[in-house]
């Protein structure tokens, strides 16, 4: 009797394991869309999550504003000063921009960084509850023109890319996820590399494939290179904070602190039309 039960249970257990493994195999990152079951569930649950997130944010905003009244006055003063200095700086930069445009025209360079992306704003309604996946759910989907592999940014820099969409929600793979890869450049000297998430839960990024002699030092800014065709060129990613040699001793990697604070993400922009990088840059499909 005992053996009978044991066999039946163990067989059941093993068949569940096999089923799960088959599912995992057939639903990898390469699949084109979500299954109907996933779509329905996501569309039902996203509004609920949106509501709960709204309540939580409301509460923390209220508590935060009551606690910070004292410091607001000083802050106001500082901000006024800052605005005037920024306005001056802004005028100067605009001047540089016009000059830059004229020079580019002169040299018949094509501007590879399109400034007028067609973007749509979205709220973050949920985060992946697992400690092993860095994804967020946003409240925009196919009905807002979103599609797989669209880049997601904030004003600070690159956030990630859309990995699946349902009618009214989308899942975004953050660049700090270890399975994310972004073709990147050191801004100042154009050293290329690939940015991926560190697997140690530190929220840091790793810029890999740097040759041992590459002139990469701390405090340099890393931007997207546009290679691979998913992320537009020139989006800020982060700052180099350290360089280490890989264990094989042949290449090195840089640890990069992202500009975006992934714990505080509330609003993001999804880039619906990435500029045609492919026309100006030779595309290395393995890059990203």
């Amino acid at each position, binding site marked *: 009797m005992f053996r009978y039960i044991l066999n039946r249970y163990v067989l059941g257990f093993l068949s*569940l*394991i096999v089923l799960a493994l088959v599912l995992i195999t057939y*639903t990898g990152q390469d699949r084109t869309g979500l299954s109907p079951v996933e779509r329905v569930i996501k569309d039902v649950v996203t509004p609920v999550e949106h509501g709960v997130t709204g309540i*939580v944010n409301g509460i923390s905003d209220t508590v935060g504003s009551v606690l910070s009244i004292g410091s607001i006055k000083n802050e106001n003063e500082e901000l006024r000063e800052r605005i005037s200095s920024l306005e001056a700086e802004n005028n100067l930069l605009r001047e540089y921009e016009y000059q830059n445009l004229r020079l580019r025209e002169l040299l018949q360079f094509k501007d590879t960084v399109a400034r007028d992306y067609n973007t749509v704003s979205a709220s973050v309604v949920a985060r992946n509850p*697992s400690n092993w*996946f860095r994804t967020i759910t946003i409240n925009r989907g196919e009905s807002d023109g979103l599609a797989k592999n669209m880049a997601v940014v904030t004003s600070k820099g690159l956030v990630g890319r859309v990995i699946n969409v349902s009618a009214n929600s989308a899942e975004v793979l953050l660049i700090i996820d*270890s399975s994310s890869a972004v073709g990147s450049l050191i801004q100042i000297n154009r050293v290329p590399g690939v940015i991926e998430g560190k697997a140690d839960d530190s929220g840091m990024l790793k810029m890999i494939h740097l040759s041992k002699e590459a002139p990469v030092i701390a405090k340099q800014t890393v931007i997207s290179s546009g290679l691979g065709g998913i992320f537009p060129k020139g989006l800020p990613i982060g700052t180099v904070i350290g360089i280490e040699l890989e264990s094989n001793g042949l290449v090195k990697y840089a640890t990069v602190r992202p500009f975006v604070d992934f714990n505080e993400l509330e609003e993001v922009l999804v880039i619906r039309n990435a500029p045609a990088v492919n026309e100006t840059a030779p595309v290395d499909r393995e890059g990203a």
Partner: protein
Amino acid sequence: MRYLVISILFLIGLILQSTIFSHLTVAGVKPDFVLIMTVFYALLHGSKEGATAGAIGGLMQDLLFGQNLGMNALAKIVVGFSFGMLEKKIYKENILIPMAIIFVATLLSESVLYLLRQYEGMSGGYLGALRSVMISAAIYNSCLTPFIYGKFYSSSTKGLLKVTER
């Protein structure tokens, strides 16, 4: 009926985990209510029920947040089945025992997920992941145990989660 109830509990747990508790991370980790409920359910009802509950909860998590369907399901089936084997072997009234079990169960579940992520190409050694993620998650989950176990225990012995036909 009990599967419907546990599914609703899983759904509530997942929504809480992905919204409120994503702001209440401790040492960078989030709690795993689905895991906690799966283990309790397995402890009180045995391996078969435990693996089934694990499959339901894990699959729901995959459907809502996963890219690869089945990853969380696999981890939770393993946990539900393994800890279901302790059903008749432990003294369930003492809260410290479920707390210790949740600690070990979290390590097991996170290890399965770690292996699956490694298979997908994630870099990083096991010891590093154990230090930075798994142990913190295990401590967080076992600290949440006292708040959930009592309700779950009484519901499973006399309430909606009681198994009637065995």
